[in-house]
């Protein structure tokens, strides 16, 4: 094994590398979607794959998302491992029936005889100045659908690791890629096999004793920033990056909250019936007697995603997170 210098890479590059490595390792891995071939995807995540592996392995499909996912189902039935790209979050909706009624259920419907190892890549979330329908946080829909795994990376290394793990999984995995982190950079060594993370494990990104911020994907850097800012207020915040929404890592999350006694869930998705409700509820079920305050939520508003010029008001930012932390009934303690 050659030693490769740890160099800065973007999340998009790590995703490309994950696809390339997976395709090189396993000839049954096929990429398909709109513009994924010649163009290399609108975010360039599939850049170079058609050239390297041929158009049969990385295929520009007709413009029809249900068709893309539906044919991927058939390909998986025949032993391939399709990796599907949905161009943007909202453009995955036409494939919803295929996703819920087939992708999520085929293993179960056939008593395990017909698993569907399909990876569904969905660039999601806001913060990139996208016009309407280009910035949805659609994770609640996927989380509420038994049979799907749902993962979302917040770091370059996790982007690689989770995508490789998704492709390796014998089950369908929805990989939610935070659009606004595509160009975020980290020092990252692509040759390090450690970067392949198993699906289902959260990670503590920052240890702290005052309260836990439970978050994922695009909100992780925001929470880390908030934790830094919180030091000035005397709070030592722990930040848990869920990485996997399904399965949910109750162990890591509950352990953290039991330690800190306070928690705030942070995500871009709308609050009502969003991921935060589930997370708050299950943390409360498990840690009730350790809680000094109710688990609070800092989330997007319950509105259609706003236009570029207003999105900063919608996205959970450092101030809003600190406001929530401040409401964690500190008086009650002292």
């Amino acid at each position: 094994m050659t030693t490769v210098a740890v160099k800065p890479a973007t999340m998009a590059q790590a995703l490309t590398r994950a696809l390339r490595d997976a395709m090189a390792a396993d000839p049954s891995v096929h990429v398909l979607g709109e513009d994924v071939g010649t163009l290399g995807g609108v975010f360039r995540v599939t850049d170079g794959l058609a050239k390297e592996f041929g158009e049969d392995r990385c295929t520009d499909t007709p413009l029809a998302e249900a068709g893309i996912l539906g044919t991927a189902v058939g390909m998986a039935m025949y032993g391939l491992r399709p990796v599907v790209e949905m161009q943007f979050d909202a453009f995955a909706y036409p494939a919803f029936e295929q996703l819920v009624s087939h992708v999520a259920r085929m293993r179960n419907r056939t008593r395990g005889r017909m698993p569907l190892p399909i990876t569904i890549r969905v660039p999601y979330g806001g913060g990139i100045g996208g016009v309407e329908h280009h910035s949805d946080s659609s994770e609640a829909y996927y989380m509420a659908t038994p049979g799907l795994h749902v993962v979302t990376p917040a770091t370059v290394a996790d982007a690689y690791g989770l995508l490789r793990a998704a492709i390796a999984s014998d089950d369908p995995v929805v990989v939610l890629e935070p659009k606004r982190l595509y160009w975020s950079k980290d020092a990252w060594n692509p040759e390090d096999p450690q970067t392949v993370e198993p699906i289902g494990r959260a990670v503590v990104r920052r240890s702290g004793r005052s309260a836990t911020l439970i978050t994922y994907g695009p909100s992780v850097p925001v929470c880390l920033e908030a934790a830094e800012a919180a030091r000035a207020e005397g709070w030592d915040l722990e930040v848990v990056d869920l990485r996997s929404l399904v399965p949910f890592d109750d162990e890591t999350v509950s352990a953290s909250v039991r330690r800190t006694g306070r928690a705030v869930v942070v995500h871009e998705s709308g609050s009502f019936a969003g991921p935060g409700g589930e997370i708050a509820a299950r943390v409360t079920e498990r840690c009730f007697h350790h809680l000094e305050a109710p688990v609070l939520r800092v989330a997007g508003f319950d509105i259609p995603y706003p236009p570029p010029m207003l999105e900063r008001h919608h996205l959970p930012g450092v101030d809003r997170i600190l406001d929530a932390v401040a409401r964690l009934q500190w008086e009650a303690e002292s």
Partner: protein
Amino acid sequence: MTVMEQRGAYRPTPPPAWQPRTDPAPLLPDAEPYRVLGTEAAAQADPELLRRLYAQLVRGRRYNAQATALTKQGRLAVYPSSTGQEACEVAAALVLEERDWLFPSYRDTLAVVARGVDPVEALTLLRGDWHTGYDPYEHRVAPLCTPLATQLPHAVGLAHAARLKGDDVVALAMVGDGGTSEGDFHEALNFAAVWQAPVVFLVQNNGFAISVPLAKQTAAPSLAHKAVGYGMPGRLVDGNDAAAVHQVLSEAVRHARAGGGPTLVEAVTYRVEAHTNADDATRYRVDAEVETWREHDPILLLEREMTARGLLDDETRQAARDDAETLAADLRARMNQDATLDPMDLFDHVYAEPTPQLREQRAQLRAELDAEKEGTH
């Protein structure tokens, strides 16, 4: 003067990119459904094939009757009968090689059975117990599909994958006239044509989607006319003429296998029974209509032809009937046994490995069932 009136009058210089890539003419269906039985074409039909079709039709009719009877006895949760459509069901199964794949819709358990799946397994889903019963890989039959037209892209993807792998496999996908209105029908046919996937789409136009007649479903000259819009051949066939359906499907399968791409076949047939045992067809159609179709019954048409050609003696009839009765008796006997189901199965196949959350829920149900058994509840 309108564009239409001017037809042929102008010789325009087309825009640079314009070139008709396919000649539409051979893609268009004939004006009338293709028939074999009772026509000159029948002379060329293989007597062996006719005998085989006959035996299968009789068996299929009996199967339908038995399954319907089982609903009355509470042994099936629901049964969508294919009585009157046996020619399509049977031909769809018979035209395929072992390595090929069949993609049935929810009405097509007869095709599944004709392909060799144990009828009890074919009916597992409709019985109300474990989901799709049979192992799809054993006979290469996709699970019965209830959400309409959603199985069509699956068939395309599978056929495409087989072709990419260099396998000589054809997929035949079945759908109803109503199902052709769904977006998935459109997307599947388009993908198939663009990829030149070896797929045959068989539309059983049985006149109704539950209560909705074809005239409210489409204004097209025929459903087969949809094919040209995808760049694939459309074929129209009398769906009650088993020899014709068999021939048209065989040709489509051969065409697909030879790399010629997909074909859309519309078989004109009729749903003689109600939509399912739960449906009341008298609310939306008159008996007289059903009666005209009984005159055009698939078994009747074949019997007439075979009788005329001296291919149907009493022995053949009796053998077919006996075979059908054996099937029915076996089905009755086995379906009348109570299914035993393990509720723990509910958790075992949601994922390859149950999530921690499912393990908790599994333990909860286990505890409940144990408590139930011990009578503590």
